[in-house]
């Protein structure tokens, strides 16, 4: 799973990232100082001519990065996608419409203190909340992006679905 990514500085040009793909090709991505990006693809790792070169402006590169990184549309396609980061997992947890947590801030819900899962972002229409703050409110239709250890998500989902929260919890 871990990709052997190599970073090299190109003095006067920018930064270069290279890695070999699983099927034997080689990718080099160059970030120019002026924001331009170039992607070089070598079909076989030791080819001396690239099979393709792609030039991208800064905004195009960001868009492409977001699509490849899966920031777009992800929760709709796969409900329970998880990403293993060693021990840690990132999970997308839809808030049930009947959740007693709706209307509470993240701080009031005390999700982290009670389950160990940290909410890092909230996906909602039209603007997702990246970098969720304690004072952000949980709303109907939200999908929470949480980081935690594998087992902690069971309790997180249960708590989110049926509470109790606030004074009742004590």
């Amino acid at each position, binding site marked *: 799973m871990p990709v052997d990514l190599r970073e*090299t*500085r*190109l003095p006067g040009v920018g930064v270069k990232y290279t890695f070999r793909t699983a099927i034997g090709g080689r990718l080099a991505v160059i970030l120019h100082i002026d924001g331009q990006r170039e992607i070089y693809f*070598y079909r076989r790792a030791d080819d*001396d001519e690239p099979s393709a070169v792609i030039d991208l402006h800064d905004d195009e590169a960001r868009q492409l990065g977001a699509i490849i990184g899966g920031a777009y549309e992800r929760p709709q396609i796969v409900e329970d996608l998880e990403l293993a980061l060693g021990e840690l997992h990132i999970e997308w947890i839809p808030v049930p419409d009947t959740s007693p947590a709706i209307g509470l801030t993240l701080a009031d819900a005390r999700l982290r203190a009670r389950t160990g899962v940290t909410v890092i972002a909230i996906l909602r229409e039209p603007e997702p909340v990246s970098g969720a703050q304690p004072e952000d409110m949980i709303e109907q239709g939200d999908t929470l992006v949480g980081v935690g250890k594998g087992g902690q998500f069971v309790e997180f989902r249960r708590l989110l679905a049926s509470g109790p929260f606030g004074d009742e919890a004590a």
Partner: protein
Amino acid sequence: MTLGELAVTIGLLCVLGLVARRFGLSAIPAYLLAGLLLGPNEPKVLSLIQPSEVTDFVADLGIVFLLFFLGLEFSLTRLTRTGRHVGLGGTVDLVFNFALGLIVGVAAFGFTFAGLVLAGCVYVSSSAIAVKGLIDFRRLGDDETDLVLAILVFEDLVIAFMLGFAAAGGGAPSETLVLVAKALGFITVGLAASRWLSRPIDRLLDRLPLEFFLLAVFGFLVSAAAIADQLGLSEAIGALMAGIVLSETSVREQIEDRFFGFRDIFAALFFFTFGLSIDIGAIPEVGWLVALAVVLTLVGKLGGGLIAGAAGGFTRRQSFNAGVALVAHGEFTIILAQLASENPLVGAGESRDLVAFAGLYVLATATIGLVLMKESKRLGRVFFPTPRLIEER
């Protein structure tokens, strides 16, 4: 120089620059050629512009801006992060090519100061042309590009010390030692200042309205150049230091953005002005030197590239590509020759030959280098065929 003459000059620079670009060549030889054509030497039909105080001053500004930008890219943190190839590759390149350059220098001027400067001219490749070639020919993704750029960084460092030497060296050994000490001191102060002064300079420049921001940076640059000039170190080192001091500040990118245009215009005029003083009449004397230097450059840069590449774990084809990228000579060769020709200790005859040599040598290597670079992968496959275990057919 009148405005009309300037208009003709700029027009010719544009036309020749575009033609060079059309053929995938660098603009630097085109600008030199423009100067050669319009200058007072042969061909005399087109002689329109005389070197004067005005052209000299414009050329000075060109050097100042070129070195200022080199300094901006120079910062300590970047140097320490440019990776493993710098020391080894750079040393191989230096030993090989300075030695070969010395052969040409001694053949031309004997064991003199001018001979030493000429060796420097043959040693130092053109960063501008190499980087342009690497970008245009789609070489940035290749592994050996790291080696090329690392060697160029090393050359830049060596040149920083040679600039002061070219402008004011050549006296008694004791004077030369003093000069080297001064140059070292000046650059050390610059590096220290870039470390400790970057915060206050940042805060000051941040607060200035745009108009004064430009003036403040320009004023700082020109003062540094003037001080270095007064210390007998050449304006080039002062400009380099100004760049180094500002390279660690947060306004570096803003400065680069705003002064790019200045650099390009004054650098073009600098190369043009240098072209003015190239005397083709000196060809009988320097023609064979240029030919010798070109051959030795091919030997030195390609051989050095192969050795540095082998040491760095590259294949022979990759090392060949790296060596080819370093064949083109340009801005630093010209700057060294220009500074040395202004040095009072270099005789008029030597100075004329040095300028003619540098001009013709850059015209030749910049053209040959880029053509070779374009074809280097094809050539590499011919010279270093892939070994086969079983002969096909």
